Each structure stands twice: as structure tokens, then as C-alpha cells.
């Protein structure tokens, strides 16, 4: 019997190695797998490359990972936020490499990794500093930039419900990067608020089929953070 529901977040992350590329779902706080990031900090892996839309704010999630000194490089579209002080100070001190990617190119590069596309031409960024040095091509009278997939060793996503085959549903706009991050890593760990029996998720509404998921980690819905 296949049971992807893990005993704990720590068990699900036991195999993570130093230097791993980690894809993180989430947009701002929505869909951010905070409990899994806490477990990743606990695990101790270093020199990580983080791929996510933002670079963390406040003291939790990505910000806590940065503060703990575990991140070598971050690939994201929008690092600057009101209280992104951990990112800001590491970046200004030259202790953190930044690859800034337009948000849609970030999403499409991750999707390409999951979909086995070798590279693709995007109109986004053409003629800007973020396309400097990149191959360009005119197609049908329009200019495009060649972009390559972003593969992860690990993806951490926050979903709403999951089953033992790894099928996932999300909640509202917390879906955001979750489904594509889940598709693009060798090992995908999803935190869920609820686990259901097989067949408990309508096959029409499963957003991430279990083929993309390695471990499902149940977390309590009303943790201290939610209450705070």
C-alpha cells in the first residue's frame, strides 16, 4: 500500500542535502509553507538556493531561513518588501546572491521544468536589463528572449487537503505557485491542514495529482502563528 503521509515534517525532509535547490510555493504569506520551512531550518541544510516569488519578510518563513544563514542564493521576482530586513541586510552585505526574474518568467521557467520543456521564448523582459546577455529572437514580428527551466531538488508547498496518494487541493489564492513548484522538483513535500481517505477528493477538483508529490505532512490548522 502506498502511503505518502509522513510521520512528521522532519521525517519528510530527512534526505535534504547541503546545496539543494529548494522551490517554495507561496505569494507573500498566502500559500507559504511556514511549518515546512521551520522543519528545514531545524534540519540544518546549508548553502541552499531558494526559488520563490518573494524573499521573506518579518521573522518567519524565508526570512527565518535567511536569518539562520542557510541560503547562498535566492531566485525571485520581488525581494523588496516593507519588512524584508533580513534579506535587505544580507544582500547589501554581499552575503546573498540574487537572481531577479520577472514573475511570469519565473512561473513559466518552473512550469517548463515540470513539463520537460528544454527552453522557451518569452516576450517578457525583452530589451531590459533582466534580459542582458540572453539570446533573443524575432518570431512573427515580435522580439522574444530565450529562457531555461528551473529544476528543484526539493519543493515545499502548502496545500489545503491531501490524501495518501499525494493528491492535493489548495484554498483560494493560496494556490499561486504551489502546483507548478510541486511539478518541478525531484522531491516534493506538501503540508496540508486535512488528510482525507482515498476518494475523499473529487477527481474533478484535484489540482496537484499525486504523481507530483513525495510526502504529505499534516499540520494543525490553528497553530500559534495563525493565532498570533
Amino acid at each position, binding site marked *: 500500500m502506498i502511503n505518502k503521509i509522513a510521520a512528521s515534517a522532519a521525517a519528510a525532509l530527512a534526505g535534504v542535502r547541503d546545496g539543494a535547490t529548494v522551490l517554495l510555493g507561496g505569494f*507573500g504569506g498566502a500559500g507559504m509553507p511556514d511549518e515546512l520551512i521551520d522543519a528545514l531550518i531545524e534540519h540544518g541544510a546549508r548553502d541552499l538556493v531558494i526559488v520563490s516569488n518573494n524573499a521573506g519578510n518579518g521573522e518567519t518563513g524565508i526570512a527565518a531561513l535567511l536569518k539562520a544563514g542557510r541560503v547562498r542564493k535566492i531566485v525571485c521576482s520581488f525581494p*523588496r518588501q516593507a519588512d524584508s530586513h533580513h534579506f535587505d541586510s544580507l544582500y547589501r552585505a554581499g552575503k546573498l546572491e540574487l537572481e531577479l526574474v520577472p*514573475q*511570469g518568467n519565473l512561473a513559466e521557467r518552473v512550469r517548463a521544468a515540470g513539463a520537460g520543456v528544454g527552453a522557451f521564448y*518569452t*516576450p517578457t523582459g525583452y530589451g531590459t536589463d533582466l534580459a542582458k546577455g540572453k539570446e533573443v529572437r524575432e518570431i512573427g514580428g515580435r522580439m522574444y528572449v530565450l529562457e531555461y527551466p528551473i529544476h528543484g531538488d526539493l519543493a515545499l508547498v502548502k496545500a489545503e487537503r491531501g490524501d495518501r496518494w499525494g493528491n492535493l487541493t489548495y484554498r483560494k*489564492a493560496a494556490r499561486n505557485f504551489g502546483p507548478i513548484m510541486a511539478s518541478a522538483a525531484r522531491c516534493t513535500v506538501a503540508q496540508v491542514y486535512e488528510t482525507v481517505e482515498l476518494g475523499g477528493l473529487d477527481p474533478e477538483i484535484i489540482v496537484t495529482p499525486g504523481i507530483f508529490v513525495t510526502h504529505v505532512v499534516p499540520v494543525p490548522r490553528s497553530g500559534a502563528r495563525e493565532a498570533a
Partner: protein
Amino acid sequence: MSIQRRTRDQIAARVARDIPEGAYVNLGIGLPTLVANHLPRDREIFLHSENGILGMGPAPAKGEEDWDLINAGKQPVTLLPGGAFFHHADSFAMMRGGHLDICVLGAFQVAVNGDLANWHTGAPDAIPAVGGAMDLAVGAKRTFVMMEHLTKSGESKLVERCTYPLTGVGCVKMVYTDLATIEVTPQGLVALDWADGLDFDELVRLSGVPLRRA
């Protein structure tokens, strides 16, 4: 008569006038979000948010916030009946694929050829952040810019050539400012209307770039 500069709300209302019923629209973070308040209630317009929402509604009542339902600026919003959620690759496919009719963005500079600079001042100590601006700028069928006409030091944000790093090449179609409404055409900038008390020649002088009357 002295120049009656348009307020932010007046600029937003002017933008709203140009958004027809049935349009699929993305309002960028900052100033453009004001436009939502000026869309007539009897006109059905579909608001898109880059983080996977179509059919976005107004801010929730205090105490009703749902932090799984936020907009691109990470503020709580609501969903209208008929709205839908989707993931980020699908959301940006809507932009890049030309499915949005209009996006409204803020700007540091707009060049006479429609080049847009709105993401980075280029200052060496600035922390860059681009978000979805480059995708929106080239993806929407029509890109509108909403901005103050002049910088704080009185320089025009309409320029021959952007000196700030570009967001998109030749992408801006309309510019709405506190002084005027300007269309970007292949033949150059065309002023459609301007603030009360402002003389057209004065508008040209303040703008510092060639400008025609409509």
C-alpha cells in the same frame, strides 16, 4: 485661473472612463489600485490579480479578512460570484497570451515611443524588485500608465528616452497624469485632454517633449 491639478482620485476616474464593460483588466500595485473605486457599478468589468484571481471584488469589511485571498499588493480582497482561482503559470499565461484587455501601471518615466520605466531607479544601493510589471507591460493588449506628470523636483516624467532601466519596450498606449491624458501613437504623443486652467502651450513646456492636440 491657476492650474487645477487633477487629484489621484480624479486621475483614477479618468482612467476608469476608458475601461469599457466586459474588459479584462489588471490594476498594478500602488496608484492604479485606486481605479477600482471609480469603475461604475452598472458596468461589469473583470479584475485580474497576478496571484491567480479573476473576478476580484473590493476589500472585505474589517474583521472579514481572509489571508488566503489577497491581491498583488498582498492586501485582503474579495471574490465576486463568477470569479475563479488558478495557479501562477496559468495566471501569467493570461497576461503573456494577450488575454487581458488593459493593464494599468505606475511609472517613473514614459518615453515618446511608449517605452516604460517603472521598476528600478537604477540607484546603486536600491534593492531591485520587478514582480509582474514586465509581464503586464508587454502582455496586456493595451498598457495604461497612471502617474504624476512631474517629479518632485519638477522634471517631466515624459521623456525622449528613458534614463531609468526599462520595464518594457514601446508598450505604453495611454498616459494619465495630474495634468493631462496623453495617447502614445506611432506619430508621437497626443494630448486628449488636460487640467482646467492649464494652457496647452504650458502643458507642452512642462512636458518637455513634442506633444500634439488631438
